[in-house]
């Protein structure tokens, strides 16, 4: 299997790796680079657990080939806390009991982050729509939706 060079920034840090051509980004991140925050749930595009942000857009790392990400800026959940302080979304998920087994949580937080980056003060419907590609089997969604709305409110208060 041909090895190909891949270079991108991951949570602001330069990464350069040789990977097998055809490797998914999920596989490259978890098994090669060691960022295990994106989870492999279905590998089918259905669960959203592997969600990452690529150049500002929500994408599924299980369906993205790593070598198509050359030169891209990639953000995962592990890049959100700063200096040991949780991101407001992470804090809100904990406070609202929006995480139970936690498997869906990184993908949920990433999907919510993209929403809040573009729409800082979303309606409930906008939150539901933004999370519609992510499956959670534990919390029943409502605490998750509340957590995202709470994080949005705390953000807008910080900005005010």
């Amino acid at each position, binding site marked *: *299997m*041909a090895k*190909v060079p891949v270079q991108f920034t991951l949570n602001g840090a330069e990464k350069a790796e040789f990977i097998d*051509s*055809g*490797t*998914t980004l999920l596989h490259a991140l978890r098994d090669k680079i060691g960022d295990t925050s994106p989870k492999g749930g279905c*590998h*089918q*595009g259905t669960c*959203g657990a592997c*969600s990452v942000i690529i150049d500002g*857009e*929500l*994408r*599924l790392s*299980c*369906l*993205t*080939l790593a*070598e*198509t990400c050359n030169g891209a800026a990639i953000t995962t959940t592990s890049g959100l806390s700063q200096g040991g302080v949780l991101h407001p979304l992470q804090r809100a998920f904990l406070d609202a009991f929006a995480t139970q087994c936690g498997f869906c949580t990184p993908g949920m937080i990433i*999907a919510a982050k*993209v929403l809040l980056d573009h729409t800082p003060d979303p309606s409930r419907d906008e939150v*539901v*729509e*933004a999370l*519609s*590609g*992510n499956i959670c089997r534990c919390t029943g969604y409502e605490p998750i939706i509340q957590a995202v709305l709470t994080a949005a409110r705390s953000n807008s208060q910080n900005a005010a």
Partner: protein
Amino acid sequence: MALALQNFSTVKDANAALKAAGTRYLGGGTLVVRAANEGDVSVSSLIRSTEPALSAITVSGSEVRIGASVTMAAIARHPDLTSLSHAARAVGGPAIRNMATVGGNLFAPAPYGDFTVALLALEAVVGTDDGEVPIEAFLAKRESNHAIVTSVDFSLPVDGGFRFLKVSRVKPKGVSVLSIAAVLEQAPDGTVSSAHIALGCMADRPMRAKAAEKALLGRKLTSDGIAPALAVASDGTSPITDPIASAWYRNEVLPVHLGRLLLA
């Protein structure tokens, strides 16, 4: 996963590489990488072209050209394509829409292909390096297509002339029970002067509801006016059966949803 990706800067070179056995074009990868993850070993090599025209949307007057690599998300946010944004938003959740391309949607088997249903009602023309083919003819033979689709071209319908409906069980992003697109023109007296209706999930690929189109001509968009069209809505259909709905159910509910779309 035994896959290798080959990148080409031109469609011409990518087309040449695609002739080798075991190769497949990579659009957004939402179906082809998924198949590889599932263990489909029929594909050993993926081909991709990064030619900029593939990612361009060009609108001049009412004429539109969408490059095959344009994503559903890009269509949904394009200021000149607001009449189609609803159809583009019908495809998957937000992450899927950021990846799913127009080119890939043309090849998506039922229950997928929602945006292609819209393109079929718009009588789009599918472009390759070898020339252009009307979408209906393209869809009929898509399995034997070995050339990279480069674009789709169509004319924007008159204001309010395009209608689209996706029926799903899981809101807001479940797959289709069925989808319907209609491009309608009406004479000043309100009678239908032209009707193009396309259906998704009513066969293994998007199809035209030709009997219903014919039955609408000269009729008004009232309950009585559309009744003959609804009576023949299922003519020629051969719906899929999947975990979402049986073929029987799809045939039963088609006239109901077509009626709602026409009276909307």
